């Protein structure tokens, strides 16, 4: 079953829409779904043109496609557990929060908090991701626990904050403090990073670009070769300030600047 939602033009296009009800499972019951625009309750058809192709009896067989200007539509895919969601353009904040299964593919850019507190499943963002990609929630000690987040573009600040499990793969560069408070999981940054892995407790972070403002409390422990990539990585242990036992590996040919 394919559900295509095309965003209608809105009178106040900058007001955020909260659409946590847009997950594949909810379309098993039809398209009578509620979304919110500011403090007003709206029906799905008020904000989207709806086209449904085929039927399904399980959420695994449902694909939801979003078209048009969805840059302000928040919480899409929240608590998603099965099925596929495709967003043709940009997507608003909190896409894929608490996701535990299924797949989300974003062709444009993702706003902040993509994949927050994810437990499973796969998110692929072709464009850039905003701040707090694959992070945790304020006050919690645990962030993303499982699943995979892959961003082909760049990510903003605090990417993979509190990463506890699962995998985060940024093909571009990260902003400030990527991997801060990390305590598990795998974090790969193909591009550059600034002040990565502050307060790291555990987990592994690999950076293939340039590290700017390397933090002073990481201890160099040696060199490791990665045969499948044919590169040598300088290996650091840290964050010593936090009694951390995490591993940060930085591609050797590009010296981290102080």
């Amino acid at each position: 079953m394919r559900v295509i939602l095309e965003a209608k033009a809105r009178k106040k296009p900058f007001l955020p829409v909260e659409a946590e009800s847009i997950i594949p499972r909810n379309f098993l019951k039809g398209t009578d779904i509620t979304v919110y625009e500011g403090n007003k309750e709206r029906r799905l058809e008020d904000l989207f043109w709806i086209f449904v192709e085929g039927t399904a009896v399980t959420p695994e067989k449902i694909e939801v496609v979003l078209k048009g200007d969805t840059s302000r539509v928040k919480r899409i895919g929240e608590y998603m557990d099965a099925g596929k969601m495709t967003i043709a353009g940009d997507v608003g904040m909190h896409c894929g929060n608490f996701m535990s299964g299924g797949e989300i593919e974003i062709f444009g850019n993702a706003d902040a908090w993509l994949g927050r507190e994810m437990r499973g499943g796969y998110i692929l963002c072709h464009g850039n991701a905003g701040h707090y990609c694959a992070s945790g929630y304020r006050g919690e000690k645990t962030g993303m626990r499982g699943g995979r987040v892959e961003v082909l573009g760049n990510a903003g600040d605090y990417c993979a904050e509190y990463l506890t499990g699962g995998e985060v793969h940024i093909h571009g560069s990260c902003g400030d403090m990527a991997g801060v408070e990390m305590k598990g999981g795998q974090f790969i940054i193909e591009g550059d990073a600034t002040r990565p892995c502050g307060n790291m407790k555990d987990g592994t972070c690999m950076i293939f670009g340039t590290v700017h403002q390397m933090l002073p409390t990481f201890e160099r422990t040696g060199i490791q070769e990665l045969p499948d990539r044919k590169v040598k990585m300088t290996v650091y242990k840290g964050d010593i300030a936090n009694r951390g036992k995490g591993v940060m590996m930085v591609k050797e040919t590009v010296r981290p600047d102080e």
Partner: protein
Amino acid sequence: MTELLIKNACVFDPLNGIRGDIMDIAIRDGRIVDSVRDGSEVIDASGFLTLPGGIDSHSHVCGTKVNFGRYMSPEDMRAGRTARRGKMHVTSGYYVPTTYGNSYRYSTMGYTTVLEGAMAPLEARHTHEEFNATPHQDMLANTLFDGNWSIMEAVHAKDVKRAAAIVAWTLSSVRGFAIKLTNPGGTEAWGWGEDLTSIRDPVPNFNVTPAEIISTMISANELLHLPHSVHLHCNNLGKPGNYATTLETFGLVPDLNNNRQTLYATHVQFHAYGGSTWRDICSKADEITKSVNARPQIVMDMGQIMFGRTMTMTADGPMEFNLYCLHHNKWSNHDVELETGSGIIPVLYSKKSLVNCVMWAIGLELALLTKNPYQCLLATDNPNGAPFVKYPEIIGLLMSKRYRDEECSTLNNGFEQRTSISSLDREMDWNEIAIITRAGQARALGLAAEGKGHLAPGAEADLAIYPIRCDDVDPATEYRNVVEGFQKTRFTIKRGRVVARDGDVIVEGANATFWVNPTVPDEHNVANDPEFVKKFEEYYTVRMGNYPVQDVYLPRGRCIKTEADL
């Protein structure tokens, strides 16, 4: 003139010796009366269990450190959120709910009076503001004196009258209700990052011992004829082997009052540990209860822990720091100049932890081994042991051995050797439950005289009607019905108004704040003592004139005046 008649109530009113009589209760203008006119509004209680409104004698719900707990826990706030509905405001929080959250949940459970466990005099205004935002329970404040500099000076000078005069001035200035001592002397030592390890350890720089502070304050309390006794959180909370400190402390207490206890020892579960390390910790509930059973001058409350996440928050700063060193959770600390301290840290009580299982058992043992239910009251030191919404489960456990056995079978294997819980057959009855959740509190707090905790004509019309038919339910086997029944009243009535019905609060609240004003002769009034004033202005960072809590903070204050024997 508003009149209300409750018909067919199955009443347990221990203070008046009523045990399960089916009767009518007449209410006029907020008080119980003999009868009302025909045509008054009628509520049919349908034979349901009807008790005086619940009284919590030790709960942390209002004030600086409670708000610290909320503030630093957005992850708890999002765990329990309700939207605005009818007369009910938005609420948030599960183990540290917002003030409206607390008030509605207490009301749903039939509670109409709450004693805030700890209020620092310097920050009393904050507590009173939160009292006004907890609108469905009458509130009272335990006022902290454990690290009070001028008290310690009086103790050092062995001047009980002076101590009493300071207490009198402080309580009336900040509209407090009772003397609270938390880790006496220890909170001052914590001002330097230290703690005390026995009640005979001298407080650094002040050279008085906790034993001296406790004894002096007990005497001062009785000189002032305060409604409640000294309310004590013993030294060495939470440390393996601390039962010895507790017993030694109990040994200090004389019997000075005919109407009530001379010492209220709070959350004693945390103070009843044998062994010497976390590895060999065991229950000493038997020794503690032996001491209490022989001493009518002591009343305690359980301090029951329940499994799950919760927040610890007490004035016991050093203890909270120790928890931080053990678990590395986020830790807040707030020492209050010249007065006391506090610490806040979240905690998880786990069935997999042997220590936690022993702690859980101890609380229940204390209640079951204390012969006189008036001497061991139900409390969890909310939220330290568990959020108060867990009280119904505790009631279920106390009334049913089968429930206890079922719970024990899910716990860490090793714990049974460390406690005697499995061998205790006692099952409390409805009358005893009514005592440990309201009648006992009313007597211990001296509030029966104010019309709380009982239902004789003249009493305040605070009632809870629970959807339980005592003859139809066997609490020993049908404990789930008991738990459910105590979770949500059919009706909660406060001062003659129905405030909650089946879980919905239906009116705006208008609670009262009870406080004491012990009058002392002018020559003892410390406000007239130039030395006292000089020291105040020199060492505090607020002016003495700005310290007292103004009338405006108690829109419906109920002042209990007493005459001091100085």
